[in-house]
């Protein structure tokens, strides 16, 4: 009998499992950072985590709140300047996996973190691209973690902050990009991968207890389910324990700061 767990834990554990021990990851804050550190503390102890603040090989004790907390530097193999991070390490093609979040994600894996509505007169002004536009094109492949609802999982993003497969799914090819772009999307309901031909995101597995209808309702396009649709394996007790320990340590550290 598996332990009870939250949808967010399911999402983070599933994302962590996708990482390999020899991956070099460019890590975003939030769920991506949780997943990467969970992987490091479980099956991928040698994984290299790079934060855009220039910390290479960070092994933080607690999850950083920002991309540049002191713990990242203290535990890193080395810390380089931000220009070097983007030029030699990201643009230089040294990163195997980029982990991104999204305010909006569309059927072709394009990411919007810039504006809801019109750019010049936005309904909501979001933080913007940061490192993501180039992470999206220079990492070997991209994993996206995003909570699954109709506000986020849209047919067409209002603004392409970071390229997925483009407006018609074929843009990377046209641009001559050698990297794969989004190969994996992990939500709190399911796991999606692009169709090998059209690059439209399709559901490859559903998390335990989630129905096909619920995924359909939460998705802003007429979503396809793979014929061999699977159930995502639930988190193990060991995974949950490590994740909860990590989050408890983190909570204590950040609330205690001052």
């Amino acid at each position, binding site marked *: 009998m598996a332990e009870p767990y939250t949808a967010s834990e399911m999402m983070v554990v599933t994302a962590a499992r996708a990482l390999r021990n020899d991956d070099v990851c460019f890590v975003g*804050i*939030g769920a991506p950072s949780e997943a990467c550190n969970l992987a490091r503390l479980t099956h991928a102890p040698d994984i290299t985590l790079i934060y*855009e*603040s*220039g*910390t290479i090989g960070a092994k933080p004790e607690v999850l*950083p*709140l*920002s*991309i*540049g*907390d*002191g713990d*990242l*530097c*203290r535990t890193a193999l080395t*810390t*380089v*300047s*931000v*220009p070097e*991070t*983007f*030029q030699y390490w*990201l*643009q230089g093609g040294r990163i195997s996996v980029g982990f991104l979040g999204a305010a909006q994600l569309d059927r072709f894996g394009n990411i919007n973190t*810039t504006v809801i509505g019109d*750019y*010049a007169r*936005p309904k*909501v*002004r*979001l*933080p*913007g*691209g*940061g*490192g*993501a*536009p*180039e992470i999206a*094109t*220079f990492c070997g492949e991209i994993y996206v973690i995003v909570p699954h609802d109709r506000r986020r999982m849209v047919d067409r993003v209002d*603004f*392409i*902050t*970071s*390229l997925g497969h*483009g407006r018609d799914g074929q*843009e*990377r090819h046209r*641009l001559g*990009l050698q990297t794969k772009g989004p190969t994996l999307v992990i939500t709190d309901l399911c796991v999606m991968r692009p169709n090998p031909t059209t690059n439209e995101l399709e559901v490859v597995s559903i998390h335990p207890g989630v129905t096909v209808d619920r995924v359909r309702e939460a998705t802003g396009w007429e979503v396809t389910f793979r014929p061999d649709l699977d159930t995502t394996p639930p988190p193990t007790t060991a995974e949950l324990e490590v994740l909860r320990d990590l989050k408890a340590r983190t909570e204590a*550290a*950040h*609330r*205690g*700061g*001052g």
Partner: protein
Amino acid sequence: MEFLSLKEAIAEYVEDGDVVAMEGFTHLIPFAAGHEVIRQGKRNLTLVRMTPDLIYDQLIGAGCARKLVFSWGGNPGVGSLHRFRDAVENGWPAPLEIEEHSHAAMAAAYAAGASGLPCAVFRGYAGTDLVDHNPNIRTVECPFTGETLSAVPALKPDVTVIHAQKADRRGNVLIEGIVGVQKEAVLAARKAVVTVEEVVDDLAPSSPNSVVLPAWTIDAVVEAPGGAWPSYAYGYYDRDNSFYLEWDEISRDRERFSAWMADHVFSHG
């Protein structure tokens, strides 16, 4: 290089209408200097910073900025910068012109500025919509392969303000830990002001390759212990993550923001 008080340094080196870069990538953000800029009521500044962070949220909310050049405008790990959003979405307290880039572009643009180049050439922005909204994103063709590369103008601030761990008595400055784009931002600027945690007899860099800015690249050094709070100074104090969380509440509301600024910025210094 001269040693000045914070008040003197900002009065002398930051002028209304200047292009000002206050850098520090999460680490070593020059908050004390930012507060002094607010207290002195500087106006019409073009604020340049990769991550505006709370420091520019405060400057924008206080009405110092005319324009913002940036690449990621959030409260790191928390959410929105509400004063920044209020300025962009509602023009409060004044409309804010924005020039938006990616981190890769801004980092390269500072490096180009430090290198005396008119522009930075890199690979960026592929397939993004930002290229349609920022006329400062252009292209050049590689004269060997014919590939199309991206170009953005070099960043050349009128004045760069940074915070660092230490200066020695000659004004040489040591930066350690997450070094961000501070060296580039200082070397790209016409004038540079550095606040430091302490002034010491011997800089004692831990490595021959430690990041040191020679005194002759700096105009003013100011001793300002704690000057990076609520960001942090590696080796001195940690990031006050709880304040970053609190700021979300403080900054949501115009009145609460103004009250906080009155109590914590205007009444000091």
